């Protein structure tokens, strides 16, 4: 039996964020269910990264509230419970894969065993002693993902984690995401690729700083009366415009 868990992992209420003089999130309301893989989908510039930054507590917020695992976003109690993978790989290029992960593990109080485990999880076993700067872009992204995984956080916030990966690796990572959700973890994964949307349990469609629609892929297909999720998005945009 899985442990009983609270239904909502993240709650955003009337969230308003201004970046560089432009209103990026416009009084956004949204709830992210616990123990699921939730996809944040939307065209580039729709506010995905800003939304994720607000949830991990590094974004200066103009108004509204962000509640994460029952705490205000960014509070000290959350720092070992939330794993964040930024869009550009944020790891040390002059260190090896293992040195990088050892460092993040030590800060999180995770064991050396946990380091080897996450390296295997992201399929970097053969690259573990290589310096990150000498790796390919996709490999570097996976080091960054592993750094988010190493403390086994309850909430994983992943900003476009599968960009630039080949189909086999992408499939493997999506399997990993669902396996983590099976174990009670909550995952928030952003993407601008609609064909990844079908792999999520629930979807949040963002457009111009607002939630266009939210629901399971099937619910959204039914609502829009379209099969293909690209068509769903377009239908919903048109409906909103009308």
């Amino acid at each position, binding site marked *: 039996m899985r442990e009983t868990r609270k239904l909502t992992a993240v709650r955003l209420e009337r969230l308003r964020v201004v*970046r*560089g003089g432009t209103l990026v999130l416009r009084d956004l309301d949204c709830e992210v269910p616990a123990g699921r893989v939730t996809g944040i989908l939307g065209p580039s510039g729709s506010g995905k990264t800003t939304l994720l930054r607000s949830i*991990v*507590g*590094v*974004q*200066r*917020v103009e108004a509204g509230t962000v509640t994460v695992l029952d705490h205000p976003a*960014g509070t*000290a109690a959350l*720092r*070992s419970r*939330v794993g*964040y993978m*930024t869009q*550009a*790989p*944020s*790891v*040390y*290029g*002059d*260190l090896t894969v293992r*040195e990088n992960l050892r*460092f*993040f593990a*030590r*800060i*999180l*109080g995770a064991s050396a065993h946990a380091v080897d485990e996450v390296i295997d999880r992201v399929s970097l076993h053969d690259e573990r002693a290589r*310096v990150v700067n000498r790796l390919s872009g996709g490999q570097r992204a996976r080091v960054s993902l592993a*750094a988010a995984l190493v403390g086994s956080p309850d909430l994983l916030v992943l900003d476009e984690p599968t960009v630039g990966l080949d189909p086999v690796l992408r499939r493997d990572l999506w399997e990993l995401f669902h396996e983590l959700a099976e174990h009670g973890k909550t995952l928030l994964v952003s993407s601008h690729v609609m064909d990844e949307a079908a792999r999520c349990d629930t979807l949040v469609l963002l457009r111009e700083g607002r939630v266009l629609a939210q629901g399971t892929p099937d619910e959204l297909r039914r609502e829009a009366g379209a099969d293909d999720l690209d068509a769903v998005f377009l239908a919903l945009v048109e409906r909103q415009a009308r």
Partner: protein
Amino acid sequence: MSRRAAAAVAARVLAQLRRDPRTLTLVVGVPCLLETLLKELFSGQPHVFQHVGAPLLGLFPFVTMFLVTSITMLRERVSGTLERLMTLPLGKLDLLAGYGIAFALLAAVQAAVVSVLAFGALGLETNGPRVVVVALAVGNAVLGSALGLFFSAFAQTEFQAVQFMPAVVFPQVLLCGLFVVRGSMATWLRWLSDALPLTYAYDALAHTASGTFDGRFAVDVAVAVGAALLALGLGAATLRRRTA
């Protein structure tokens, strides 16, 4: 404050330095070269080398660590690793302490190697204990690191960060009393000199060289330590968990 987190940061910074042997060679080699040049340059007036050799030895780490810290911190900001660190259970003080420990260790190695050369082959002599020169050098490294950390917040690129070196370090070196005795400076220059931390660091070294450990020496050390703490505090204030 977490000792584990600070130790993790120090170990990481040292691992990064270890992967960059060329920088390490320069950090240790350049001061050796400069001390040797100084000795040869004033071969006709050996008292000049005896006068400035020890203070210079103690000031090298200030310059080196100012640069190394400002570039390292800038990289941390630009690469997004600082943002990641700010989401982790790592206090700002832990981060600063980790940096401080790593760069103080590097400064200790630098000062020790240069001392062996200067006090050995180059025949430099001091009236005060040589170990005090090395200890002050390590202290100056921390002061340089603290200032480098603070000024790195005002640079967006490595080009800009490097320019802060002549802007922040050179005036202090010129006004600290090494080139012109402070007593013979114009009043406004002496006031300026009074306001700069390196003046006190230099004065402490000069007192060690001449072996006059009076009240003035204690004041010098206290002011230099205070300035380092103030700069660290200002540096910590530039580390923001939330950014725009």
